[in-house]
């Protein structure tokens, strides 16, 4: 008997061990890891390799070397673009942080009137296209023909201008007001969670409101402010649309406009573009690492275990000033640009002033009525393609996000740490950089020149947004619920379908719509990867700006904005009122 047992054992044990590994859970999670690895690492690998290939004058042969990096650091134009990028990112960060913290403080810590109703509007710029904002602000504040300058000249009789956005300050201004919600989102939560007794103590010892705010309130939320500021710095360093419109034509090239020029411009040199991309990625990568490893872990230290009742500071008559500040922000970031674009879009040719006799809806017909012989194909196709990409991209990205979040938070191994790390990488890479890697990687595959390559680019770059959304909710759900289901005999897939996903539903909807909106307005990736028939809405706007003139561009920009605003309303309806109140 004993002998029989020993002879059978070696045959059974390895088989059962293998069977133990081959489970639905392991297959799905391994496949997901592989997809993420390939999607992220492969483009970056090719980008790094390309950066060491030096192109000859005729543009076909390359040799290995450090020539591209030499050019990046020695070339006058690129060096200047590098410093412009740093200046723009710094300026944008200062402006967005100031506005973001101020608005967050007004809404979270003061008795500013109507703050509940106003708060969602503070976040709208985050969902709109900064490129469209740049087009609008150019028409508002170009020195000679901007609306605001024309009005100022008419009222004050001045000959010069009061504002000029066609320079580095304009880029900072527009990028700053559009990225303010990023800081706002980081800070407002911390301010709401803050124990007010700390402020009360300061006030009872005789400190003024200003001193209390500067010496107690703000230091307590410093990690949140720094996190928001770093994200703004990184995002603005990778921003393409605003400097392309307001900077580059006026001598203020940035790294992204130069990368664009090297990727698809007249002096195209992918390899030099790759080296520039690596430089930009290095800056953003370091900052993201600092945010993730040093600042973010400190964010919860302001929340104590002691119970407290949130209260607000009574601003007295100053509350109307606070309301004015908030309304002014919404006016300059949303209302004013929209009014300006609307006016321009009703003219056949924009002559820098309103001509009532010219007003027409002709431009809308050209971009919306795809059956009309006068329609502009790239605009109508762009709308359809963007919807296809946004819908399918958001769906696939959310499926990936659920699986990845599950693996990170429910399977504790080296793989989960690795995945967590992989999910941070795309955040650190500007869209235009990642798109170059995607292009080089997939050019020989069947997805090249199809919507598929755009989809890959979008998902690779933005799925971490969805994943963070899911992760934050998953962290709040106890693992015991999953374990109980498994103990009761449910498979992994059944547990995921019947327990985990229903609990994650609000996060899934919110993440889906967030990605949907981001994909609808995406420009940096699309501009590198589009081809005939795969143009997107933002590419359409850029195309019209390049080849058809301001009124048509404004009309498509208005259409894009209306679609995005519609999505925000839907977002609020589906994800609940709280979704846009941080």
């Amino acid at each position, binding site marked *: 008997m004993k002998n029989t047992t020993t002879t059978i054992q070696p045959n059974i044990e390895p088989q059962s061990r293998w069977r133990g590994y081959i489970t639905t859970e392991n297959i799905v999670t391994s496949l997901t890891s592989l997809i993420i690895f390939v999607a992220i690492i492969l483009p970056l690998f090719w980008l790094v390799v390309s950066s060491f290939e030096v192109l000859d*004058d*005729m*543009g*076909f*042969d390359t040799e290995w070397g450090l020539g591209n990096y030499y050019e990046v650091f020695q070339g*006058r*134009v690129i060096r*200047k673009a590098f410093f412009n990028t740093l200046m723009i990112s710094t300026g944008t960060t200062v402006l967005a942080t100031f506005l973001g913290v101020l608005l967050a403080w007004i809404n979270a810590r003061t008795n500013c009137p109507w703050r509940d109703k106003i708060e969602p509007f503070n976040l709208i710029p985050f969902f709109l296209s900064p490129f469209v904002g740049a087009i609008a602000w150019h028409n508002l504040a*170009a*020195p*000679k*023909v901007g609306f605001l300058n024309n009005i100022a000249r008419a009222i004050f009789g001045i000959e010069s201008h009061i504002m000029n956005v*066609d320079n580095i300050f304009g880029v900072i201004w527009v990028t700053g007001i559009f990225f303010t919600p990023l800081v706002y989102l980081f800070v407002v939560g911390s301010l709401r969670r803050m124990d007010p007794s700390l402020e009360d103590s300061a006030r009872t010892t005789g400190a003024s409101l200003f001193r209390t705010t500067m010496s107690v309130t703000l230091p307590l939320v410093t990690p949140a402010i720094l996190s928001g500021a770093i994200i703004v710095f990184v995002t603005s360093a990778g921003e393409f649309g605003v400097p392309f419109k307001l900077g580059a*034509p*006026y*001598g203020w090239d940035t790294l992204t406009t130069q990368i664009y*020029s090297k*990727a*698809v*411009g*007249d*002096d*195209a040199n*992918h390899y030099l573009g790759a080296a520039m991309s690596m430089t930009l990625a290095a800056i953003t990568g370091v900052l993201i690492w600092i945010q993730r490893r040093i600042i973010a872990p400190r964010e919860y230290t302001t929340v104590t275990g002691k119970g407290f009742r949130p209260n607000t500071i009574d601003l007295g008559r100053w509350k109307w000033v606070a309301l004015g500040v908030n309304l002014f922000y919404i006016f300059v970031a949303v209302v004013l640009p929209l009014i300006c674009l609307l006016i321009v879009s009703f003219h*056949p*040719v*924009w*002559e*820098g002033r309103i001509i009532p006799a*010219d007003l027409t809806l002709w431009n809308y017909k050209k971009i919306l009525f795809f059956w009309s*012989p*006068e*329609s*502009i*194909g*790239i605009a109508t196709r762009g709308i359809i393609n963007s919807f296809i990409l946004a819908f399918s991209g958001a769906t696939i990205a959310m499926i990936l996000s659920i699986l990845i979040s599950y693996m990170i938070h429910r399977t504790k191994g080296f793989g989960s740490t690795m995945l967590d790390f992989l999910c941070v990488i795309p955040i650190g890479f500007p869209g235009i950089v990642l798109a170059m890697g995607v*292009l080089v990687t997939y*050019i*020989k595959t069947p997805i*090249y*020149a199809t919507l598929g390559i755009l989809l890959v680019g979008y998902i690779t770059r933005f799925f971490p947004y969805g994943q963070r959304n899911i992760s934050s909710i998953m962290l709040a759900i106890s693992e015991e619920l999953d374990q109980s289901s498994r103990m009761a005999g449910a498979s992994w897939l059944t547990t995921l379908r019947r327990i985990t996903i229903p609990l994650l539903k609000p996060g899934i909807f919110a993440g889906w719509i967030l990605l949907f909106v981001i994909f609808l307005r995406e420009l940096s990736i699309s501009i590198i990867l589009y*081809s*005939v*028939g795969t143009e997107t809405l933002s590419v359409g706007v850029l*195309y019209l*700006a*390049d*080849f*058809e*003139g*301001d009124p048509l561009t404004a009309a498509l920009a208005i259409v894009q904005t209306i679609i995005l605003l519609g999505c925000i309303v839907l977002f609020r309806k589906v994800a609940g009122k709280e979704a846009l109140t941080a």
Partner: protein
Amino acid sequence: MKRSLRLFSIWLFAVAFAVSSIGFATLASAGVSPQEKKLVRAAKKEGAVTLINPLFSDRTAKRMQRVFIKRYGLGNSFRLNNIRKGTGSTVATVRQEIKAGKFTIDVHLVSAPGFFHAAQKKKKAFAKLDSAHWKDNVELVEKAGQYHNYPYVVTPLAYTFQPVWNSSCPGMKNINVSSYADTVQPALTGKTISPDITKSFTYTNTVISLIENGVNMNAIWDKLKATKPIVEFRTEPKIQMVIACERPFDMHNLSGRVYQNVLKKPGLAKKLKIGYYKEGQVLLGNQAAAVKGGPHPNAGKLLVDFLLSKEGADVFVEGEAIYSFRKGYTAPAAARPYLLDLSKHKLLGLKDWVGAQKKFKKVRGEWIKRFK
């Protein structure tokens, strides 16, 4: 039953024969050459052709599709896909496809002699053409000192940069520009748009040609800098600035841009003025080639020949106000006011269009010193 079937088959065959005969008779009557006829059947089967270029607007492309289909009887389902990108962008796209050996483009049309030369020399990138219409173009192409590399690369059209200004803007009423000296007059201070030669082959080639012909560009740039110009390279945004009086004078734009905006608003015809340079107008020939390996090879070759034909020329000249190299060609009336009478102007080309690319770095370097 069998007999009726046979009769029906004969009837069907006769109808098919008659239809195809009518089709060929139509082709013959439309002046379609035997070379084109050879390509038509295969092109029809391919069902589409994709052209990449920096010039043709949606309006022109749609009209081109209609005329192309009609001329060759390609059927209503045939599609002419027009991809319009910047000059360099088209080059970057085609170059990356050639290097990857993966093609979505059939025909490339752009002013980039250096690229066409290198692509053919190093990669044998273009299909061999057997054009019926090249003989009607080659004489003027060569007379104008333009690059071509027939039977692979032809040059069907050209444009030239001209000064454009808005006479209705403040301080612009008495401005007239007919030389480079006029562009740097103090009256234009703060009003000028200068081309960004670092981002454009065609601006750079224009400058190289002028230098070759004795124009001291460095001196002009020094004076130009004193007028505080802004630097922009895309022609449509520049014409928008001119129209809106933001920068009412552009040194180098295309008369076609003026024409297209006048079509949108006829009143602009009186305001927008187009000048010329007595030092010489640099004619920038646009080369066309059928990309070897393109998804629609026969339709691609057919389209190249179409661009060289009178019918093709009528479409792009009427749509864009650019120049055809066809001998004895008369431009459509609508575009004529926007085209120079080339016989009355000093036309400049380049001694070596391909070699010019090697001068880019030096020339651009001089420009960068002053403007970047």
